[in-house]
């Protein structure tokens, strides 16, 4: 039971990988890649969590002695979430270019079109 969030990360990664392997549409493949990416977010945040502690924001009135969860993993994750959107945009631009050149976005059919 204590491993459950880590197993969730592994589950998301493998499910996303299954989607990538069996995909029939390149946009579906890109979205499954983003599911795999979310597995890393879940893993990072689950590692940094401390039971019973609060968020690492100490605005006036919140006692510091309560303690907080680890802020470093949150810092790593939050920039990554926004930057991954641009990564997905780059991949989708590639998909659009493939569509323009090959006329199809089915990965299986693309492979056989190689001449």
């Amino acid at each position, binding site marked *: 039971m*204590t*491993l*459950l*969030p*880590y*197993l969730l990360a*592994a589950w998301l*990664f*493998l499910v996303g*990988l*299954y989607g990538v*392997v*069996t995909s029939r549409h390149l946009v579906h493949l890109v979205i499954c890649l983003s599911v795999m990416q979310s597995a890393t977010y879940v893993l990072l945040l*689950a*590692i*940094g*969590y*401390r*039971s*019973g502690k609060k*968020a*690492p*924001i*100490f*605005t*006036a009135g919140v006692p*510091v002695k309560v*303690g*907080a*969860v*680890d*802020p*470093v993993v*949150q*810092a*790593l994750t*939050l*920039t*990554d*979430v*926004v*930057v991954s*959107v*641009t*990564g997905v*945009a*780059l991949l*989708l*631009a*590639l998909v*659009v*270019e493939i569509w323009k050149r090959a006329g199809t976005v089915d990965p*299986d059919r693309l492979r056989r079109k190689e001449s």
Partner: protein
Amino acid sequence: MSRNVRLGLFAAAGAMLAALLVWGFTGLPAFGDFQGEYGWILNDAAGHERHVTNVVASVVFDYRGFDTLGEEFILFAAAIGVALLLREARDDRERPRDEVRSDAVRAVGLMLVGPTVVVGLYLVAHGYLTPGGGFQGGVAVAAGVVLLYAAGRYRAYSAASPHGLVELAEGAGAGAYAAVGVAALFAGGLFLENVVELGTRGTLASGGTIPILNAAAGLEVTAAVVLLLHEFLEEVMYPA
């Protein structure tokens, strides 16, 4: 390789990967029992050392500011990549089709543009006091600008985000981040060291270089997201 071979290979490799992952995870500390010392030290010290109340923002923009510089340039490079791939000589003969026929969508959407932009700017500005920051608020402001397209007309959207200005803003945001780092060198410190006067904790005037880097990141993220959406929308609007 054929599809069935691929599936069989995935089944075998996936099972091995799952076993390895589970074996690896049993070596981690139990969930909720993180042992890292760095986190404890930062939670205690960030308030005194940097006078900010949002410890995560101080980690992003100060203690780990160099990593954020790298992330910003990933953003920059990805936006340039999209522009390179999708931008080509487009034929402007066809008039873009862009009417929103539903009055309700238009009314509600256009009414929400102002509040969205304001909320986004608030998130950026107060990022080092309460949850928020340049990255979150930047995307929210870009959402407000794009709402002009979604609920209004393409012409309104492209008038509100002129191409040259957006590109200039993106470059300025990325450059300002690096410039603050270099300015710290000239001020006698290390690259990206916090050499500006730290203010009073809990007010907007605190944190030294953190608000400046925060604003630069917000500017760059807004401009990058608007640029990305602009490139894709141009592809759709001008089918050529």
